[in-house]
């Protein structure tokens, strides 16, 4: 099938960037990124600069791929990363617009590659359990109910891709931050630092220039791991509790 692509090209952080049009011939078995590989081979063959995009595992778990396809982060399918999107969901002659994740806290590095290091700094602000190697007691010493562990896992499934931020009109990182806070706070091991962790991470999130949450829910809708808004509610509860109880 033949596709008409409109792709955001931007040489570096400083330059302005614009859409460019390309045509590409692909088959339906390819993944979306393999379609871009085909395009890049074409560009290289004609000695042009290939389109830069972040990608690595190509099986939906590393969280590297980050593009907005026809207005939606990771494309039209729910619960899917860009690398898991296959061309069978498109048809011959389709127009596809491809842009980087756009948010103030995610500056564009080149073409479709953005800088998501703000996420790392949010984790560094408190997204961990303070335990050194070798300090742990037996893994079965504290029973954790299956439901609790499972809920924690649902939040821990976050791949840190940033689709939630890209989807949000405010560029808010609430879902990402809340997922980490829930993952750890729902487990007995993480409870001890729960309130302090929440305060510290939220503070860092704000400092990074992410927007506020106005309960739109686009983050949940576009999250490739289908992380629930419930986590944001949980984070807000902890934040209020922390502001009333801590120093």
């Amino acid at each position, binding site marked *: 099938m033949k596709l008409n692509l409109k792709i955001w090209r931007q040489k*570096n952080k400083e330059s302005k960037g614009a859409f460019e049009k390309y045509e590409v011939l692909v088959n339906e*078995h*390819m*993944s979306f990124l*393999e379609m871009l590989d*085909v395009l890049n*081979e074409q560009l*290289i063959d004609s*000695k042009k*600069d*290939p389109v*830069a995009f*972040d990608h*690595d*595992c*190509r*099986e939906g*778990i*590393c969280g*590297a791929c980050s593009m907005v396809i026809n207005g939606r982060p990771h494309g039209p399918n729910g*619960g*899917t990363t860009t690398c*898991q999107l*296959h061309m*069978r969901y498109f048809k011959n002659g389709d127009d596809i617009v491809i842009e980087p994740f756009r948010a103030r806290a995610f500056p564009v*590095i080149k073409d479709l*590659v953005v*800088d*998501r*290091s703000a*996420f*790392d700094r949010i*984790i*560094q*602000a408190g*997204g*961990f*359990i303070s*335990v050194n*190697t*070798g*300090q*742990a007691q*037996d*893994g*079965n010493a504290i029973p*954790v*109910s*299956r439901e609790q*562990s499972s809920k*924690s*896992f649902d939040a*821990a*499934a976050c791949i*840190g891709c940033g689709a939630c931020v890209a989807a949000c009109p405010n560029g808010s990182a609430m879902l990402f931050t809340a997922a980490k806070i829930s*993952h*750890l706070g729902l*487990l007995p*091991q*993480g409870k001890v630092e729960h309130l302090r962790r929440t305060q510290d991470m939220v503070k860092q999130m704000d400092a990074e220039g992410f927007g506020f949450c106005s309960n739109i829910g686009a983050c949940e809708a576009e999250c490739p791991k289908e992380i629930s808004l419930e986590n944001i509610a949980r984070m807000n509860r902890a934040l209020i509790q922390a502001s009333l109880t801590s120093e």
Partner: protein
Amino acid sequence: MKTIQSKIPEGALDKKWTSYKSKVPLVSPANKRKIDIIVVGTGLAGAAAAASLGELGYQVHCFTFHDSPRRAHSIAAQGGINAAKNYMNDGDSVFRLFYDTIKGGDYRAREANVYRLAEVSAAIIDQAVAQGVPFAREYGGLLENRSFGGVQVSRTFYARGQTGQQLLIGAYQSLSRQISLGNVKMYNRHEMLELVLIDGKARGIIARNLLTGKLERFGAHCVVLGTGGYGNVFYLSTNAMGSNATAIWKAVRQGAYMANPCFTQIHPTCIPVSGDYQSKLTLMSESLRNDGRVWVPAKKEDADAIRKGNKSANDIQEADRDYFLERRYPAFGNLVPRDVASRAAKVECDKGLGVSPTGLAVYLDFSAAIQRYGKSKAHVLGLHNPDETTIRSLGEKQVEEKYGNLFEMYEKITGDNPYKTPMKIYPAVHYTMGGLWVDYNLETNIPGLFATGEANFSDHGANRLGASALMQGLADGYFVLPYTIGNFLSEDIRTAKIDTSVAAFTNAEEKVQNRLNQLIGIKGNTSVETFHRRLGKIMWDYCGMARNAEGLQKARKLVQELRNDFWKDVFVPGSTQEFNPELEKAGRVADFIELGELMIVDALHRNESCGGHFREEYQTGEGETLRDDENFAYVAAWFWPNIDQEPELIKEKLEFENVKIASRSYK
């Protein structure tokens, strides 16, 4: 003649590590603060090491080519992590895990290292739980286990089908904590392009800042490489696109020994190749073989009809199916080790019984499990005469609970529903047992250069058992290296901060810049990707699941020609002084080509079959591997600093004092 010293401590096997730990020289906290350590790689082995060393008080400098340490490919490990906890009370023990690993590796691993791995395995689980890894739990709140290939106990801990992700996030969080405390300085989007030696010791690296293209110098008292495996030599593998051998290859070119490079793991259950454009292969976790049954049609005409699309799996009657793993290996059935399962699938496909249009696929079928779970669930619910539909629907729900995300992944890629028709699978390159040669201290033959996780060769012999990679990466990073590194550093406390303005660094930087300039300057007509594909095809055809002397000799010539072509005709766009993913890839592929040649040399010299290394000339009448313990019970360590000379072989003899070396049978 070069010598090799494994530095295995004296004493009984089960006392070695304990006594080593109580005798290893220590570095005082005041001195630790003055010692710099470079850790390259942030997967399980790298991140765990960096975090633990930071906790100890060393000044750690940690590097990844990714935009975040959390993206390292450990994240994609699915099935689980082994540990000799014996929570299931099914007869597991440290010795049994040790024995299974030695046997699984076809008696080509070092006993003392493997025993230590088994010994520390239980502590890894405790550590991970304490970090907040949400492992699967029983209703009573205790940790759950399942089985993996090559063993007869349940010792695999897991977090749905995303165990690697959860363990890596645990390590990443610990690393993040050390970054926030200032003990670890993290360098994202930095790629190590040279190892710097001063007076024969590893004292630093040259790294390229991938965003700006600038080369940067980093000095340290020692260097740790936790940079993973080199499966991408084959182009198509289950590795991530960026996984590469450049860091370890730079070490080899500086004189580090590369051990057993031909030991490659071909994983039996991957989604088959569907076209030439394909960029990577996707694994379906080994855990699926707990419940999935592997089969092909017994009759060739049925297989033909399926390939032509005239019949489907469900049209084949039970009597006309050949569950070949259960038939050939009744004791272990579908849970034979990976090398055995892969070869068996290849044998069936070579007979013309493959079930995809390419002829290269076998079925992995869950219908029996769906029936079994469905009936059991119906019984629990008190339904005494459930109809077929009820059984199926209850059974599918149970299977979904266990493997839901894997089934979903399969459906996304193939468009087929594995609850209704069996999955199609075929073996694919997955892991490399070979790697940098290390002694008991995880130190290479270059003093001060350490290798952890998949980057070293140490624990898996000629075949790795499922769920043991995560175990090894974390064992090395959390529990082994933090002790053994003291052995080197305690002698180095008087060494001042490494000065990066000395000639060794200047020369190294210049060498790297020249090579980058050369890559850009060729301005040929062939893309990096094309060269990589060609390399992959040579390696898969001649140095893949089955190898023979004639093919390997031919392959070596082909790879040498490819290397010449590459340096004459590669086209790399852009410049060295900018963010340039094609340039990064070009350097990695250039290294893969050289490493590929060494893999071929190693495969050709090892005139026996063992584990994943199957030389067609050396097999039993039943098509099983035929080892030659008299002549090949050694680690093949290769010294190859100069590409224009022949690689030199150094042998480390393997002594088996605690297990009886025997022919490996799963029948």
